[in-house]
Each structure stands twice: as C-alpha cells, then as structure tokens.
C-alpha cells in the first residue's frame, strides 16, 4: 500500500512538472509572429506520417538510419510495457496483462529482442560519437553541453534497457522458484542468458526485480522531464514540426505582406493597405521570427546533417546551419527566462543577431537549400537566415559594400551590374 502511494505520488509529480515545462515551451514558441500553416491538412498529415513516423529522409544515410529505427521502435514499443507498469504500480498488481496468455509471451519476448536492439544501437552510437569521433558531431557549436546531452541520452537508454532485462531475468527465476506473486508469464529470449549472473536466494531476487522495476519507471519519468532541456525533444516535436513544415517549393521565399502594402502605396496613391502585423522588417531577435521558426529550434536534435552538406561550412566558413538552430533555441530560452523573472517587455540589451549569430555567418549563405533538404525532420535554417538578412538590409542598411552596390545597380539600372538598360537587348544585335 505504501509502495502504491509513493508510486502514484512520483508519477503525478513527474507529470505535473512535465506539463509545467511544456507550457513554458509553448509560451516561448508563441513569442514568434504568426504564420499560416493551416492549409492542405491532408498533405500535411501524409508528410508527417512519411517523414516523422516513416523516417524516410533518414535513409539517405542507411547505417545510422537503420540503427536509429531500431532504437526508435524499441524505445516506443517497449513503452507499451510502461502502461503495464503504471497499472501495476497504481493497483499493486503484478504483470496485470499476463492474463492474455500466449500474446503476452509474444509481447514480452518481442520487447526483450527490441531492448537488446536498443542497447546495441545506443552502444554503436556512443562509439560513433566518442571513439570514432565522426566529423558530423563536431563543430564550433558542439560545445561541452551538446556533446554531454547526446551521451546522457544514450547512456540513459542503455541503463533503462539493462534494468528492463535484469528485471525480467529476476522475474523468470522467481517464477521457477514458485515465489508468491510471481505468476508464470512471459517469454524471455534475451534475459534468460542473464539468469546465471543473478543470485539464487529468493529475497535477493525480489530485491533485484523490484529495484529494476522502480529504476525503470522512475528512469522513464526523469527522462520525460529531461526532454524539454535536451536535443532529445525531437521525439515529440518531430511530429508537429513535419506537419507544419513548408510545403511550397524550396526555392520560394515568402513575400512580405507589410512590404507589399508599402510598395503598392508607393506605386498607387489611391491604394489603401490591408491590416498587416506590426513589427520590424526581418528579424533582430527571436520574437521577430515566426512560431514555425521557433518550433524548428526546439525540434532540432543537432545531428549535423545540415552542416555537413552546407557549401559554406564545407569550405571552412563560419556558417553552420545547425548553429543557427541551436542559437535560436538558446536565445529563445534566455528570453523566456527573462520573462519568468521580470515579466513581459524586459529588454536585456541582447539580440539573436550579433549576440548569438554573427553577420559573417548570415552573409556566407548561398541559399542553396542543401540544409533544408538534408534535415530528416524538415527544419528550415534558411528561413531564419533570410529573416536576419532582411533585418540587416531593411532596418539597418547594413550589408557588405558589394551587396549594397548590387542593390544600387538594380534600383538604378534594373540589373545587378552597372550596365545601361538601353543596352539590354544588344545581345541580339552584335556578337
């Protein structure tokens, strides 16, 4: 009875804490400007199924894709077991689903095989990151915290799977001993090999079984609450992020409505503009970006596929699309904390541009869309870079001198070079 009360209390506390943090995350995302992504719900749903659930974009790199799929499937499916744990925990029952007979055996057996898969997958991932030191996992933005974050996640998953398997091994041994409570149920294709490692005394086995049970469920609850602080948030955000992702051709940049109003008014004095969202042109800080840009930042799992295909980054420039996303998240969290402390309207004198992302980075982009193509969950770093450029050019008139010259030429000659518009058709007349 005491165990049940403790269990319920811990679970409720974990859920409450998680809800509290999620509310803050949603509040932070809502710092962004509006963006309409309510069109084509069917196509959006299919995109989500294909890209997030089906992980289709992962398969451009088959080895990590395969390992990732196993870890993902394993982790999600084994969580069905958590449902049983929750019910057992609340009602003090033991393996409540075991009544369904051979299906239960099949399920537990499959969970064990998946658990082994997750274990191996995570171990290989740890090796790739820490021993093979794959280039994709390094870079200026991959400081101590992002590297540790990745390792914490992988180690936690290994520990959780180990606890799950040890729990089953002890349980199976107790079943053989005919211990009270431990009804004969389940198939243990993996954990049976661990049985010899365990003691034979009933009390010790019960202690191990209970210990692992508690470790497993508390571990999962901690893991849940770790998500909002971690790159691992993508296991949740991949779904809304792909659903609300850009469905237009990648080459198309948004037309700014506020500008359309002004240009129309300039060309036609009788024009009366429609209501447009107030604010500055482009983005100086995170609240000038759209909620989609900000959700993108929470979704990024820092895998570095974007940066590894970025032509600027490949050739040694400062720009790294992954850093754009990580900086956006860091700045958003900072702004969120400021609001928590001092309420809305507080200005800490910092901004996304300059304090986080430098001018040198944004001007190195070729807008080639390699990053957006490479992202397995449709994150769009280019949209953020474009907004920062818009701010620099339209609000500050701060662009590289040669860009200014090019803009001046378009304005005066209708071409980015200094040629006379009268000569535009000369190509047909001479050679």
């Amino acid at each position, binding site marked *: 009875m005491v165990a049940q009360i403790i269990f319920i209390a811990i679970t409720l506390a974990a859920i409450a804490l998680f809800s509290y943090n999620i509310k803050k995350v949603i509040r932070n995302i809502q710092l962004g400007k509006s963006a309409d992504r309510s069109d084509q719900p069917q196509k959006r749903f299919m995109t989500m199924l294909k890209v997030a659930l089906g992980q289709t974009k992962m398969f451009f790199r088959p080895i990590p894709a395969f390992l990732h799929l196993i870890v993902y499937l394993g982790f999600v499916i084994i969580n069905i077991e958590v449902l049983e744990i929750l019910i057992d925990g609340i009602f003090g029952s033991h393996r409540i689903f075991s009544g369904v007979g051979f299906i239960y055996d099949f399920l537990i057996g499959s969970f064990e095989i998946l658990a082994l898969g997750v274990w191996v997958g995570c171990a290989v991932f740890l090796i790739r990151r820490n021993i093979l030191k794959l280039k994709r996992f390094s870079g200026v933005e991959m400081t101590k915290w992002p590297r540790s974050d990745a390792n914490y996640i992988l180690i936690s998953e290994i520990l959780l799977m180990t606890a799950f398997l040890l729990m089953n091994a002890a349980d199976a041994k107790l079943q053989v001993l005919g211990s009270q409570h431990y009804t004969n149920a389940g198939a243990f294709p993996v954990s049976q090999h661990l049985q010899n490692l365990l003691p034979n005394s009933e009390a010790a086995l019960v202690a191990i079984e209970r210990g692992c049970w508690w470790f497993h469920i508390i571990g999962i609850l901690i893991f849940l609450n770790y998500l909002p602080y971690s790159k691992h948030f993508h296991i949740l955000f991949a779904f809304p992020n792909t659903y609300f992702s850009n469905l237009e*051709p990648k*080459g198309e940049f948004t037309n700014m409505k506020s500008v359309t109003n002004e240009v129309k008014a300039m060309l036609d004095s009788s024009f009366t503009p429609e209501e447009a969202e107030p604010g500055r042109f482009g983005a100086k800080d995170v609240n000038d970006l759209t909620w989609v840009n900000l959700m993108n930042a929470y979704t990024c799992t820092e895998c570095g596929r974007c940066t590894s295909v970025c032509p600027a980054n490949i*050739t040694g420039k400062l720009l790294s699309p992954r850093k754009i996303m990580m900086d956006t998240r860091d700045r958003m969290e900072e702004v969120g904390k400021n609001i928590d402390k001092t309420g809305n309207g507080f200005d800490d004198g910092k901004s996304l541009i300059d304090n986080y992302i430098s001018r040198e980075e944004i001007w190195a982009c070729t807008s*080639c869309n390699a990053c957006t193509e490479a992202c397995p969950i449709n994150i769009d770093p280019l949209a953020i870079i474009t907004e920062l450029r*818009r701010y620099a*050019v339209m609000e500050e008139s701060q662009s590289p001198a*040669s860009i200014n010259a*090019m*803009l001046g030429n378009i304005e005066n000659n209708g071409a980015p070079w200094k040629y006379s518009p009268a000569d535009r058709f000369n*190509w047909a007349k001479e050679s």
Partner: protein
Amino acid sequence: MSEQLNFEVPTMAEMIAKGEEPEILFWVGCAGSYDERAQKTTRDICKILHHVGMKYAVLGTEESCTGDPAKRAGNEFLFQMQAMTNIEVLNAYNIKKIVTGCPHCFNTIKNEYPGLGGSYEVIHHTQLIQQLIDEGKLKAEGGESFKGKKITYHDPCYLGRGNGVYEAPRKALEVLDAQLVEMKRCKSNGLCCGAGGAQMFKEPEKGNKDINIERIEEALETQPNIIAAGCPFCMTMISDGVKLKDQDKNVQVLDIAEITARANGL
C-alpha cells in the same frame, strides 16, 4: 555555326504592333542580357526556338531584373518594386507562358510573382528543350557529334532542390549518345557552385577554400570532356574553377542550350 544570329529576334512591342501574340515569352534575364558568356546561351536558346518554328518574343529593353538577388540579399522592398513593375509589363502584354534562360528568374517568376499578381506558366529552358525532344520537334542531328564524349551535369540549386527539376536537363543530354557521368554529389544532394543567395555579387567570407573550387574538383574527378550547366551563374563559377585548375584546354563548360544548338548544327 556562326555566333551571329541570321534572323531577327522579335520583341513583344513589335508583335503587338503587328497584332500578333507569341506562343511563349523568352525571359532572358540580366546575365543572359549583359554577361558575354551568358549571351551566347541566350542566342542559342533563340536559335533553338527559331529552328523549331515556335512563335516567341522577348521583352528587349522592357525587361528588368526579376529582383531575385535583391530578395535573397534581404531587400524585400527592392524585390517587390522590381516584381510589381515587371508584372505590370507582363500583364499588359497578356503573357501566359514564359521560358527563362536562368533558374533564378525561373524560380522567382514561377513561385514568387503569383502572390504579387503575376501568374504565368513558367518553364526553364532545359524543360523546353526536353519537351521539344519529347514531341519529336528537336533531335540531335545535323551538327556536332557528342558521341562517346563524357558529360557531367551540374544541378543548379534553384532548378534542382529549389524546384525539383532534375530530369529535364538530363533528358536533354541523353539524346546525344554521349556518356553521362554523375558527380558524387548530384541531384537533391548536389553541391552549390557558390553563386546563389547573392554570393555572385560579393567576395566570399573567410574560409579555407572557395566553393566553386570544391565543386570543380568533384566535377574533374569524373574526368569529363564537358561539364554541362543550366544557369549563367553556375557557368561563371564553374568556368572560373576550370581555368584556375588549368583544365580549360581539356574540359569545356557548356550550357545545355549550347550543347543542344551545337548538336543540331544551329
């Protein structure tokens, strides 16, 4: 195969004066109008249009920059000013269909003009060439033979990833009986030439290599006779790269329109 055109290129103004309407408007673009190298491609596109007897016209001096480099650089004002002025001209001429000689113009007019009141059917010149080949109006005969030549095609970002056009330029090359070889990074994984996003008009940021050198090294690995391009900016970047690598005697950089014109003896 003289460089000169032995026919007049019709302008929209002339067409309208004669009470005629073209089947398609050829949007030349700034590079195609002013850049010497790109002008060759422009003339070859005209030769192809003339050769197949398609009724076409250009805007001539009435054409102006689409605003693409301004938009990528972040100057939305200038972009929309250019766009609206161009749309006014295009709509006044009641234009329905446009072929562009540049993937940047193609992307801008096709995707970004409709929201500002300019909706047209827009194709890139490699798509037009593919259509003409499919319809049997254009072959690869009567001109230079590309048989057995090794050709590698560089995907322009705003044609490939930007708009998903990967096959048309390759189809246009397939009729040549040449040997098509792909670079390691091609199609959706293609590497940028380094010119996009208004980079064409500025010096690159500090790094350890220029992007076009990274690309040209990859292209040269395929040991091509010809590197095929579909964009005047890629053309500049790749040609510069080939020269820097001292390979301009061995490797030609040609636009798909030039290759098509040559193969047909135009």
